[in-house]
C-alpha cells in the first residue's frame, strides 16, 4: 500500500498559487479571453414569456443585419417554452452590437400561456400547471423509522418550527460559456467548465460526433459551484453557429442571463417537529417539506443534480423519524448541483430547530450538540472551537444583551462525503532537468494546479516553481469532473503515483541511487537525448472520504434598523492530510463568504404578475462584499493518517445556520426565513411585540 512521506516539507505548508502571477497580470487566458483566428461573438435570444406556445421564429431579418454571419433556432418546429429566459435562438456576428441588433429583429410568434412562479401558489391544485400531464406538487416521498407518534409522547420537550430558504443563484464570476470551433476536422471548445470530460461527452452526444473528434480546453476558468459540468444550451448553440458561419464562435452569457437558465439552489419550506427525552437525547423527529427546482425533472437539467429534496434530520441520528418531502414545479429555470447540494438547506432547518430545543430545555446549544452529534470528529471540533471562540463567555440567554444593538452567538455542524478515484496522469522528465506533469483535470479555482506542483516537488525534492503543470485539456490523461469535493482526493494519489514511478525509472535508467533534490539535474542529464515519460494512476490508500466541520458565528443586530453585522466566524474543519494549507484555507474563506451570502443577502425573486426574475443583476441580487465580512478564524485539523480529503463543500454548509442561530440568540426571537434582511428582522421583532404586549408597553428609560 502506498503512503505519503512521513517527513513532509512542502505538503501541508503554505504555497502560493503557481499561476497567481499569470492570473493577476492577465497572462492567463480564460475561455472568455481566447480569440482564435476569425472568431465571432454569439448571443442568445430568450423567451420573454414565462410560458408560451412558440409557433414560429423568423431569423431572416436577423441574418440581414450587417456583420451577422449565422443565426439558428434553439429547436426546430413548434414548442412550448416554460420559463422566462428559456433559449429560443442565437446569432453570431462580428461585433457585440451587431448581435444585439440582430436579436431585436428576430420575429417570434407565440401564444402566451398561464404560468405560476411562486412555490406557495404553484402547489395549489387550482394553479396553472408547468407540465400539463403532471401536478406541480409531486407526491411526497415518505421515509419513516420507528414509531414517531408514540415517540413524541415519550418526549420531555417538543419544539416545532417552520423555516424557509430561498432559491440561490450560482453567479460564478466568469459567466457560463464556450468559444467553439467546429470544422470538418472536428470540434475544439474552450469551455468555462468544471468538467472538461463531461463537456466533451456533452458536445459529442449533442452533435453526434465521436469523442475523439472533440477536444475541450479549460486552462483557466472563473468558478462554477456545480453549475458548469455540461456544455450547456449555450455551448451547443455556439457549436451550431460555428458550423454555419465557418468560424469560431464565442458565447459567454451576460450577467442577466446567469439569473435565468443556468441553474440554482432549490428553495425549501420546512415544517419541523423535534422532541427530546428528559436526559436531552433526541428521540422523535418529523419533517414535511417542499421546495422548487424550477420547471423540475421534466425539463432539461444540464449537469444533473439539484432536486428539491435534502437529507433529514441531517447530521443527527434520531431513533424515530418521519420525513415527507415534495418538489413543486414553477415556471422558472431548473436547479443544478450547487456547492454541497441539499446540505446548507437541510442544515439551516435542522440547526435552527436544535437551538429552539436547547432554548426550551434551558441547556447550552453546544452541550446539546455534544450530547447528540454522532460524529466523534465533530464533537472534538465543538470542544476545540468553543474554546477558541470563547463560547462559554459569549453565550447568553436569548435576547438578553442590553441596549438596542444586541450581540448573539450560534453554532452548527456539517458533514460531507467527498472521496475520489479514477484519475490518470503522466510525467515527462527532460534531459535539461525540466519536468512536465499532465493531467486531464481542471482548476475550478481551488488551486488544483498548485496542488499538483506541491506534490510533485515534495516527492522529487524540487521547488513547486520547477514543475510545469498542464491541466484542462481532454488530450491529457483523463480525470473526473470537479464536483462533490473530489478533485483533490482524485488527483493527489495519481500525482503521487506518477512521480514515484518516474523517480524510480529515472534512478534505474541513470544508475543514480537518489535522483532527488541536489542530484536531480545531474540525473536528468544522464538521460541522454530522449526525455523520460511515465504514466501513473490513482491508488488506494492515499485519500479517503468523510469530512466533518463545525462553525461558530458572532453577530451584532441593530434591533431598531434590523441590520445584521457578522463579527466573527470560527471554523474548525477536518480535511485529512492538507496538501496546501494556503489554498485550503482560501477554500474555507470562500465557503464562509458564500454561507454569509446565503444567510443575509442572496435570494432570486420571481414576480408573480409578470413571471420574470426581478433581480437579474448584482444591484438587487445581493452578494456579500469585503465590507460585509467578519473576522475569520480557520482551523484545519491535520489528520495525515486519513489521507487526502476534499473540503470545498463542507465549509459552506454550516455558516448560514450558525449565523441564523446567532441572530436568534441576539434577538430572542427567530427570523425563520433566509436571507435575514433588515425587513425580516424588523418584521420578526414586530410580531414579537404583538404577541408580548407587556414588553411593547414598557416605558423607555
Amino acid at each position, binding site marked *: 500500500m502506498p503512503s505519503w512521506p512521513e517527513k513532509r516539507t512542502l505538503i501541508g505548508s503554505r504555497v502560493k498559487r503557481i499561476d497567481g502571477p499569470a492570473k493577476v497580470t492577465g497572462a492567463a487566458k480564460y475561455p472568455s479571453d481566447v480569440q482564435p483566428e476569425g472568431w465571432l461573438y454569439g448571443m442568445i435570444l430568450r423567451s*420573454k414569456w414565462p410560458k408560451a406556445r412558440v409557433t414560429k421564429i423568423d431569423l431572416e431579418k436577423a441574418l440581414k443585419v450587417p456583420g451577422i454571419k449565422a443565426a439558428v433556432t434553439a429547436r426546430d418546429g413548434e414548442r412550448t417554452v416554460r420559463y422566462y429566459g428559456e433559449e429560443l435562438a442565437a446569432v453570431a456576428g462580428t461585433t457585440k452590437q451587431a448581435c444585439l441588433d440582430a436579436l431585436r429583429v428576430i420575429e417570434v410568434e407565440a401564444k402566451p400561456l398561464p404560468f405560476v412562479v411562486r412555490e406557495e401558489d404553484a402547489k395549489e391544485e387550482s394553479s396553472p400547471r408547468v407540465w400539463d400531464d403532471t401536478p406541480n406538487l409531486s407526491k411526497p416521498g415518505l421515509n419513516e423509522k420507528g414509531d414517531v407518534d408514540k415517540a413524541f409522547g415519550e418526549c420531555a420537550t417538543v419544539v416545532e418550527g417552520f423555516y424557509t430558504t430561498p432559491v440561490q443563484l450560482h453567479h460564478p464570476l466568469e459567466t457560463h460559456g464556450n468559444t467553439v470551433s467546429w470544422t470538418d476536422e472536428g470540434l475544439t471548445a474552450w469551455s468555462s467548465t468544471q468538467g472538461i470530460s463531461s463537456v466533451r461527452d456533452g458536445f459529442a452526444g449533442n452533435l453526434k460526433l465521436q469523442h475523439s473528434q472533440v477536444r475541450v480546453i479549460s486552462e483557466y476558468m472563473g468558478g462554477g459551484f456545480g453549475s458548469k459540468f455540461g456544455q450547456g444550451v449555450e455551448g451547443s448553440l455556439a457549436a451550431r453557429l460555428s458550423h454555419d458561419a465557418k468560424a469560431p464562435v464565442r458565447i459567454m452569457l451576460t450577467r442577466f442571463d446567469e439569473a435565468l437558465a443556468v441553474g440554482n439552489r432549490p428553495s425549501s419550506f420546512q415544517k419541523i417537529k423535534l422532541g427530546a427525552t428528559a436526559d436531552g437525547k433526541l428521540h422523535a423527529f418529523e419533517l414535511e417539506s417542499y421546495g422548487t427546482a424550477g420547471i423540475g425533472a421534466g425539463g432539461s437539467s444540464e449537469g444533473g443534480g439539484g432536486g428539491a429534496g435534502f437529507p433529514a434530520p441531517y447530521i443527527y441520528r434520531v431513533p424515530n423519524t418521519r420525513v415527507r418531502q415534495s418538489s413543486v414545479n414553477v415556471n422558472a429555470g431548473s436547479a443544478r448541483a450547487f456547492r454541497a447540494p441539499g446540505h446548507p438547506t437541510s442544515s439551516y432547518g435542522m440547526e435552527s430547530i436544535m437551538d429552539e430545543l436547547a432554548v426550551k430545555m434551558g441547556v447550552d446549544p453546544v452541550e446539546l450538540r455534544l450530547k447528540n452529534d454522532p460524529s466523534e470528529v465533530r464533537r472534538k471540533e465543538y470542544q476545540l472551537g468553543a474554546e477558541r471562540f470563547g463560547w462559554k463567555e459569549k453565550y447568553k440567554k436569548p435576547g438578553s444583551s442590553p441596549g438596542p444593538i444586541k450581540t448573539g452567538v450560534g453554532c452548527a455542524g456539517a458533514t460531507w462525503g467527498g472521496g475520489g478515484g479514477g484519475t490518470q496522469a503522466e510525467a515527462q522528465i527532460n534531459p535539461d532537468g525540466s519536468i512536465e506533469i499532465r493531467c486531464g483535470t481542471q482548476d475550478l479555482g481551488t488551486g488544483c494546479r498548485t496542488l499538483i506542483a506541491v506534490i510533485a516537488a515534495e516527492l522529487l525534492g524540487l521547488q513547486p516553481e520547477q514543475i510545469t503543470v498542464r491541466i484542462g485539456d481532454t488530450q491529457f490523461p483523463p480525470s473526473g469532473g470537479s464536483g462533490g469535493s473530489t478533485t483533490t482526493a482524485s488527483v493527489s494519489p495519481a500525482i503521487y503515483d506518477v512521480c514515484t514511478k518516474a523517480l524510480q525509472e529515472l534512478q534505474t535508467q541513470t544508475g543514480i541511487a537518489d535522483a532527488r533534490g541536489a542530484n536531480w539535474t545531474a540525473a536528468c542529464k544522464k538521460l541522454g537525448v530522449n526525455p523520460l515519460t511515465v504514466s501513473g494512476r490513482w491508488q488506494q490508500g492515499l485519500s479517503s472520504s468523510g469530512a466533518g466541520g463545525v462553525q461558530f458565528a458572532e453577530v451584532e443586530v441593530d434591533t*431598531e*434598523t*434590523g441590520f445584521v453585522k457578522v463579527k466573527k466566524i470560527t471554523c474548525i474543519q477536518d480535511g485529512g492530510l492538507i496538501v496546501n494549507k494556503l489554498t485550503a484555507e482560501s477554500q474555507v474563506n470562500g465557503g464562509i463568504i458564500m454561507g454569509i451570502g446565503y444567510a443575509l443577502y442572496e435570494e432570486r425573486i420571481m*414576480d*408573480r404578475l*409578470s413571471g420574470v426574475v*426581478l433581480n437579474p443583476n448584482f444591484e438587487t441580487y445581493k452578494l456579500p462584499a469585503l465590507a460585509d465580512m467578519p473576522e475569520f478564524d480557520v482551523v484545519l485539523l491535520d489528520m495525515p493518517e486519513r489521507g487526502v480529503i476534499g473540503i470545498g463543500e463542507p465549509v459552506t454548509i454550516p455558516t448560514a445556520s450558525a449565523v441564523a442561530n446567532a441572530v436568534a440568540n441576539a434577538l430572542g426571537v427567530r427570523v425563520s426565513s433566509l436571507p435575514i434582511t*433588515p*425587513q425580516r428582522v424588523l418584521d420578526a421583532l414586530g410580531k414579537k411585540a404583538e404577541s408580548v404586549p407587556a414588553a411593547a408597553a414598557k416605558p423607555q428609560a
Partner: protein
Amino acid sequence: MKPFQYVTATSPAGACELVAGNGRFLGGGIDLLGQMKEYLADPKILVNVKALPGLDKLEPGEKSWTIGTNVTVAQLEDHDELKKTFPGLQHAAAEVGSRQIRNVATVGGNLAQHSRCWYYRHRDVLCLKKGGDTCYARHGDNKYHSLFTGNTCISPVVSNLAVTLGALEATVIVQRGEKTLRLSIPEFYAKAWDNPTAHHSLDAGDLILKVEVPVQQRRSAYLQVSEKSMFDWALVSCAAAAKVKGGKLSQVRVVLGAVGNVPYQDEAANKFLEGKELDEANANKAADLLLEKAHAHSENGYKIPLAKTLIRRALLQLAVG
C-alpha cells in the same frame, strides 16, 4: 444600445439647443448609459456637458456654497471644508454607490437620476412609469418601495444628495432655453409626486447648472440603512439640519429618502421641532408626525419603524455638532 450622435456643448444655452428633440445630456453617464444599454432610453443625440466652463467648480462662500453640476460625488466626499460645514452632505456623498461610481458620477446626475424600481428597470416589464397601465410594485414585491406617493406609482426617489440638500434648503439652478430657473428641492421633484412617469420636475431640455447651499450656521446629519454594509441603495435614508443653541432647535428640516417619489418632508414635523429641546422624546414625536401619513404596502411596512429610528438618530446626532 441604439446608434446616436455625440456632440460636446460649449455653453449652457447651446447645450439646451443641441439637446432639443430627442437628446440627453451626458455628464458622468452612470445612470444614462445603463438606461441606454437596457433600451430604457434611446436618445438620438448625446450632448456632452462635461466641458461647460465653470460647472466643475466647488466654491465655498460665506453665505452660501456653489456646487457645479459636473462636480463629482467623490469631490464632495473628499472635501475637508465641506465636511466641517455640511457634514450631512459629505456623509450622503460617501454613501453613494462605490468609490468607482463616485469618481465618475456628478452632482447633477445624482439629482436627476431616474427611478431604480426593479419593475421600471426591467427590460421586459412595461410598468406605469414607462407608460404602461399597471404599477407592478403595488401588486408585487415592493420591499424597496414608497410609503408616500401622490399618484399610483410607488417607486421612490433614491438620490442621497437630494435628501440632504433638501434638509439644507439648497437651490438648484437650471438652464431652460435662454432662461435660468431657481428651484428649491421640493420644487425640483414636485412633478414626480403627481405624475407617475416623472422622475423630477425638469423638462426634457432642462440642464442643471449648479446647486447653491446656504450656510446659515446649521448643523447637519445624514444616515441610511441598506441591506449591505456598503455599495448598496438605502432602504431608508434621513437627513436632518438645524441650528442648535443651548440645547434648543431652530430652523429644522428633516427629510426622508427612499420612502416617497419625492424626498419626503412634512411641515408639521419641522414646525413641531422649532424651539424644542433636542432630546429623544421630541425626536420621537417628530418621527411620529413625519410618518403619520405613511401608507405601507405588502412588503414595505418595516420602513416605518426604520424611518422613525433614522429620524431620531439623525436629530440626536445634531447635538454633537
